[in-house]
């Protein structure tokens, strides 16, 4: 325990500087570069990989002494990581030559008594797997586990934050585009509605005009017909109280005259108004 604390004291300054720079990093590239620079101040290693898994989403970082790489990949775990996920117990054991290439993308120098240290970290919805290859010349020891834990905590929380932020920005962008699209559609609809309104207004006015014309035609028809008709009705009313002779002499000629007037007016109106109505219906069709 004292040993671990002493180790932490040596790396304390480098780690605190690393943490403060990490908190300002905004991209995965920056995180990757910053981590590569500082790993050598924390412990000895030949290569290290950090995989963080959120749902079906896996982000892998891979570091050698002077190279760094990161990529997203579909769930693919190496044998050590599978063991870690099953048992969640750290692995610290000899590494066979053949296994090395499955653990790192980088060319490593010839290793002397290669060892793997691998550990599982649970951060709620995100799980992380860290595996380190070391050897006799660059020995990763149990003293280094504490600083590795601190590094992984800071690293995973930062990369998760960056990923969430970019997802949020993506969603925001989609949202903005959707709103813009709705806006455009709304404007199109508005302009269609406006055009419709204008058309309806014009048509309504036309219909009202036609109606007025029709009403005035009807009024003129009724008025012109009413006059002789009222005479006829008046005469018929009078005829009730008179003798046959009186009717024939006084009233019948007037009746005849009024009926003839009615006939003339009627014929005239039919002719004239038929023309008017024809004209109107023609306008309506246009």
């Amino acid at each position, binding site marked *: 325990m004292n040993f671990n604390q002493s180790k932490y004291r040596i790396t304390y300054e480098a780690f605190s500087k690393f943490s403060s720079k990490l908190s300002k990093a905004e991209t995965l590239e920056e995180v990757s570069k910053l981590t590569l620079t500082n790993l050598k101040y924390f412990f000895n290693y030949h290569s290290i990989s950090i995989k963080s898994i959120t749902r079906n989403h896996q982000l892998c970082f891979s570091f050698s002494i002077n190279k760094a790489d990161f990529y997203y990949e579909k769930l693919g775990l190496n044998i050590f990581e599978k063991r870690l996920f099953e048992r969640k117990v750290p692995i610290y054991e000899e590494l066979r030559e053949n296994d090395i290439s499955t653990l790192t993308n980088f060319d490593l120098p010839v290793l002397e008594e290669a060892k793997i240290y691998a550990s599982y970290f649970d951060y709620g919805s995100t799980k992380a797997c860290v595996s380190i290859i070391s050897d006799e010349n660059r020995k990763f020891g149990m003293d280094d586990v504490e600083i590795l834990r601190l590094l992984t905590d800071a690293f995973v929380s930062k990369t998760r934050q960056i990923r969430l932020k970019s997802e949020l920005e993506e969603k925001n962008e989609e949202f903005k585009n959707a709103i813009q699209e709705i806006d455009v559609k709304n404007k199109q609809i508005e302009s269609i509605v406006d055009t419709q309104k204008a058309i309806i207004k014009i048509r309504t006015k036309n219909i009202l005009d036609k109606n007025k014309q029709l009403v005035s035609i009807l009024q003129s028809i009724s*008025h012109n017909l*009413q*006059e002789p008709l*009222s*005479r006829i*009705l*008046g*005469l018929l*009313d*009078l005829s009730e*109280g008179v003798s046959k002779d009186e009717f024939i002499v*006084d009233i019948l000629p*007037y009746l005849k*005259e*009024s009926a003839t007037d009615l006939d003339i007016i009627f014929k005239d109106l039919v002719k004239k108004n038929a023309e008017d109505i024809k004209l109107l219906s023609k306008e309506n069709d246009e």
Partner: protein
Amino acid sequence: MQKILSFSQKKMTNSLKKIPTIFLVDDQKITNFINKKLIENSKIKGEIFDFINPLKALRKISQLQPSHILLDLNMPQINGWEFLEEMKKNNLKSKVIIVTSSDSPLDRERAKDFEQVVGYKTKPLSEEKIKKIFNQ
């Protein structure tokens, strides 16, 4: 000359006997005929003068002092409204009953502008309508 005299005599006798004078003003002689008959049949006492030319009627008002004028609106020489305007201008006070084949609310409204108009009737008139007019 004699005619004028006879008119003035008539007038005198009328005013003495209090028999009212009634004007029928309509460009249709048949209408005037009908209305005259209706008045006679209704036993309304009165001396009836009918005119198919409203201008002629106007000229006779001051002389014959009719108590009632049955006035058509739609006439070729001057229409009923112009007739009423002329009466107003010359301060002629006879009671006017508009008798028209139009039942237009506009016309009914306009009729109210003339205080001498006491009735508005649509054609054809009947004995009943006549009685209402003269029993007012």
